[in-house]
């Protein structure tokens, strides 16, 4: 396959849409990094080097003093060393809360505390935690875009991962650009900490916004090379967006993505839920060269979702020839979904021919029954 050589050069077969993260590392038209950026990075490296030297000669007492500096937000306990924001001396949004915001902040803080327990749970603790989780959700659901700065400030300081998830969902539901930016910042932090579970929840929160801004973000990150390792999560979020249909070009570009098989699976799913008949040929072309059985099954699922009768010959061929039992079952399901006389005929042929696997045979019989063919 050509995919492998493409992966080394960074140019996928059909990834003309793919972009780098525009804010951090813009590239010129040839794809080269700008010389200006080289200079900036050089200076950054020099600065880092000097800071290293400085840290080695910094008096020990001074170090201790800087470490002991209290966090900017007094009520929220500082995160551990692994958390973001705890030692950041820059101004926090929580420093300038209005009176009304301060009240909300206090309520959130109290509910955060009520969601915690520090000894073996007992019945009263269980009831307290359950109530607090409900109340917290209701409170956060009542907030709007004007509270994003406050929520962002809390998110940066909150040490508890479950409490942070409440905040992530709240920001996602609000969905303003500021809220989405806050989620992106959190994504970068979670990514840098290797917190894959938190990355997952953050991207899921991005999809909660379900607006144009979130669509643009999910689209960009689905194609971003810097975020390749989480690309499948962004594509998955994109497939769940109400504008998924507008992302068909993204799915097409990623259908033969070499970075990870799960990206190709998610792109296929995008076609399954949003594809048009005109996309069937794209999926079929990818299916021709794909060897991973799990991805082939996703492609067959996509063809079943698109429901183009012109795909039936290829699906029928896979049903009769593929070595993998589950892939043949996928082909049966695709024919069932495509429906119509030709699909029924293909299934009848398969039934009459018989498959070496009882599971596949049973699947064919079940499909025919669902299509009204019992005998």
């Amino acid at each position, binding site marked *: 396959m050509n*995919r*492998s*050589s493409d*992966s*080394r050069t*960074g140019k996928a077969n059909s990834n003309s849409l793919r972009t780098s993260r525009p804010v951090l*590392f813009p590239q010129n038209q040839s*794809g080269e*990094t700008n010389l200006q950026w*080289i200079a900036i990075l050089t200076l*950054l*490296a020099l600065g*880092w080097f000097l800071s290293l030297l400085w840290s080695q000669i910094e008096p020990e007492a001074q170090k201790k003093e800087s470490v002991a500096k209290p966090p900017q937000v007094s009520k929220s306990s500082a995160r551990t060393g692994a958390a973001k924001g705890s030692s950041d001396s820059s101004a926090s949004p929580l420093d300038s809360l209005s009176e009304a915001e301060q009240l909300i902040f206090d309520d959130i803080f109290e509910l955060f505390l009520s969601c915690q327990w520090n*000894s*073996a*749970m*007992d*019945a009263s603790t*269980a*009831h307290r*935690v359950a109530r607090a*989780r409900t109340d917290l959700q209701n409170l956060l659901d009542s907030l709007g875009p004007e509270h994003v700065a406050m929520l962002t400030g809390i998110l940066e300081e909150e040490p508890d991962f479950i409490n942070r*998830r409440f905040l992530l969902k709240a920001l996602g539901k609000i969905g303003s650009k500021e809220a989405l930016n806050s989620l992106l910042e959190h994504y970068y932090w979670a*990514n*840098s*900490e*290797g917190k*894959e*579970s938190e990355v*997952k929840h953050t991207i899921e929160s991005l999809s909660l916004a379900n607006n144009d801004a979130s669509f643009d973000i999910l689209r960009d990150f689905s194609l971003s090379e*810097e975020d*390749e*390792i989480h690309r499948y999560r962004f594509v*998955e979020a994109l497939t769940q967006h109400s504008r998924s249909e507008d992302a068909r070009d993204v799915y097409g570009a990623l259908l033969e993505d*070499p*970075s*990870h098989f*799960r990206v190709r*699976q998610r792109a296929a*799913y995008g076609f*399954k839920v949003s594809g048009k008949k005109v996309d069937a040929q794209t999926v079929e072309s990818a299916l021709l060269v794909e*060897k*991973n*059985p*799990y991805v082939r099954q*996703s*492609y*067959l*699922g*996509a063809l*079943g979702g698109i429901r183009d009768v012109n795909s039936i010959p290829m699906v029928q061929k896979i049903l009769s020839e593929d070595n993998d*039992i*589950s892939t043949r*079952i996928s082909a049966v*399901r*695709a024919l069932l979904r495509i429906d119509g006389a030709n699909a029924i005929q293909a299934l009848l042929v398969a039934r009459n021919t018989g498959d070496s*696997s009882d*599971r596949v045979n*049973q*699947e064919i019989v079940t499909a025919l029954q669902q299509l009204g063919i019992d005998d």
Partner: protein
Amino acid sequence: MERMSPLSNQCSKYSRIKSTALLLILIGGLLPIIGCHGSGDSIPNINNAAAFLEDNNVVRGPGMVTPRYGHTATTLEDGTVLITGGSDERHLTSLDTAEVFDQGAAVEFGEPIPDSISGDFIDTDVEGDVITMPQGGRIFHTATLLPDGNVLICGGTADALFAEAADVSEIYNIGSREFGPDSLFVDPDLGTPRFRHSATLLPNGKVLIAGGQESRNETIIDPNFAPGQPGFQITINVFPSLKSMEIFDPASRSFVPAISVAGQDAEFLSARGRVGHSTAALGGLDNELGTTDDIIFHAGGFQTLSTIFAPQFKLPWQNDTDNAQNFEYYDVTTGDNRLAAGIVSGSRVNTAALLNLGQVRNTTLEFDLTDPPDGIIDPLTGDIPSVPGMTNLLVIANGDDDSPACPTGVTANDLVVATFTGFGPSDGLTFTVFAGTAGLTNNIENLVADPMNCAPFARSEADMVMVNTRRTYNGQSIVTGVGLTVGGAYELVPPAGGCVEIMAGVCSNGIQGVTIFDPFYNFQTDPTWNPVPNSNPITHPTGIFGTLINVDTTYADDLPDNFGVALDPSIQLNQAKVLHTLSVVPGEDGLLNTVDDRVVSIGGGVSYFPNYGDEPATISCEIILLPGTNTPEAP
């Protein structure tokens, strides 16, 4: 194959920069600041089989799609592992998703895994949809591999607070990788919805569902209020333990109450049932496992005090419970339950491991003992042709005392031997328990030793599995089974009070380290344990021994009472974790139950007490290869 894997330790945005000068700068200074995406740690490319073929090692695998703990892990016929449910939020919520670990086995030694094999976690069904359990998320549920290769998902509950026990079971279809399609609908379902029960595949292909907890609403009277006043009667959720047993028949996909041949309800004999117990099959009179006279052994766990005084939530460490110190067994032939008289051991709950070393009897003991090198069968030197009851050697390890103040690991790991005489009640079935007392002897042979004497060492919420490895006997290389455990937690109460959780361990290898139970090793008389194949002789083939050994990468200091020194590199997890699962998966031959099998640790949380898993571990998959796993046979 040159496809770049996202799991490889590559930083794509740097690799594409062509400026040599900039590259030097990055290497020298910037890289440590920004790092690669992902964790930045060294993550072997799973699409390279060589990463899985290095003996005596723990290899970091791919990340789960949904990092989790408290899930089930079931090794399927094709060597993949089905992961279902669990939680990623301290059990306050549960996950309704499943994923399949496919390590991309059956690849030639040292060859990269081709595109046609994934080597990762698969989370989609045959139609490309994310695999979900239609009945919702589950914790405290069971997953049982059925004879047809499908998996029964039974019971559980949606959260550790007040959700009711799940009343609908589901069957995972291995062909379509989906749950409960119409053709696999279960009806009737469980008579008593339950969670934290046991589910054991019987020799007849049916599944025994035993004990657990149910969810009930109880009305109680508050004497502080007069009758008729608000508050006089209140309704509370309680989760009492269960005595009842049910049988699932895969042929009819239905549950029926378990009934003995005498027509009686088959149920636990403990006053209020049994919860969170461990289960293992024992061979019956024929000393063979998997035959109709097997018995199912239930050990440990706890019972709740009554319905009204049952716990009103589901996390461990409850006041309203009573730990079981007795053992019971279910006779598959008669459907009777009996208390294993005379067997009392340290009570233990929270994933106490119960392992029948007889599971590998065929591969463990069927080597030629009739022709030792000296030509003489001498039991005193270990040449024993056969020992009755060898299928019934149970190791009971791990777990804790479930104390609400501070759960403390059970330090004495027990060895139980069941023997049949064929006479008297229960065919003369008797049990002998060796509770970790060094020097204890029995009338079969020699002694049992438990050198796990390095302070509290038992692990809470850590599995123990049986895995094959290579050993020698009389100069011949043979395949034997050992028990393997890793990870978990134990607690200590410091002098000042409170409860300090220790995840890293203090006994050199610690909790992160791999510990094996070698049934053939007698630490008091054998030479220093050396796992290098063909150099560590079996001197006592009956296996009525057992030593728990921490596996280091250096062997010379593996003194059983010292576990080496702290600086030794050891075979250990890259991250401490609890509530993870251990599963045996095929090695390079792609076949299960062969010598190159390896163990995969999946999922896990970073803390045990009191947050029961807490945050999901950042390293959610690790593959453990014991010494000698892949060593080629001598020509």
